[in-house]
């Protein structure tokens, strides 16, 4: 229970920092040439023409995730004598 109180205190402090730091006037100080006519729903090719690198890298990331899952669920052969681990007590 002690730990949770500490956590709640930290969160309240964060909230206070936020309220002090961010005032609502920050939004939309200076928009670079945004036109209200340009809507995503009408021009969905936007994502393929202007931001295709993001989508392509995201696809490679899903590939990396699939590879990661197959690495983490692979069949393991019987383990041999491994390097010895030193565990120090009470630190970290």
């Amino acid at each position, binding site marked *: 229970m002690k730990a949770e109180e500490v*956590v709640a205190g930290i969160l309240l402090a964060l909230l206070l920092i*936020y309220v002090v730091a961010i005032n609502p006037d920050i939004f939309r100080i200076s928009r670079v040439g945004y036109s209200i006519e340009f*809507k*995503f729903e009408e021009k969905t090719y*936007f994502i393929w023409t202007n931001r295709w690198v993001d989508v392509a890298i995201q696809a490679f990331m899903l590939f990396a995730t699939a590879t990661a899952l197959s690495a*983490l*669920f692979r069949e393991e052969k019987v383990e041999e004598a491994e390097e010895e681990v030193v*565990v120090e007590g009470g630190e970290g």
Partner: protein
Amino acid sequence: MFLQVFYANVALVMILIGFYCIASKRNLLKIVIGIEIITIGVNLNILAMGLMENSVEPLAQEMAIVSIAIGAAVAAVSLSILINVYRHYKTLDTRKLRRLRW
């Protein structure tokens, strides 16, 4: 303008709920759920920052879509590591793990 500030605050509340979940819960699955809640909060903030009259800016929508996919990828990797943790310890209690104190 008004809705922007409102949603920015909702996003911040979601992020704080996620932090609270990670910091106070003793279960590893709850930690993963906390990370996902933070991801949702950040996505909400991205959309709030791009909120116009009745629509959201295209760049903000693209960022939110990619960010959702990234969150799912992180969830998949973390759950598969978690299955391996469970195979070793037969428990999900953080207090039983040897070095997992931060």
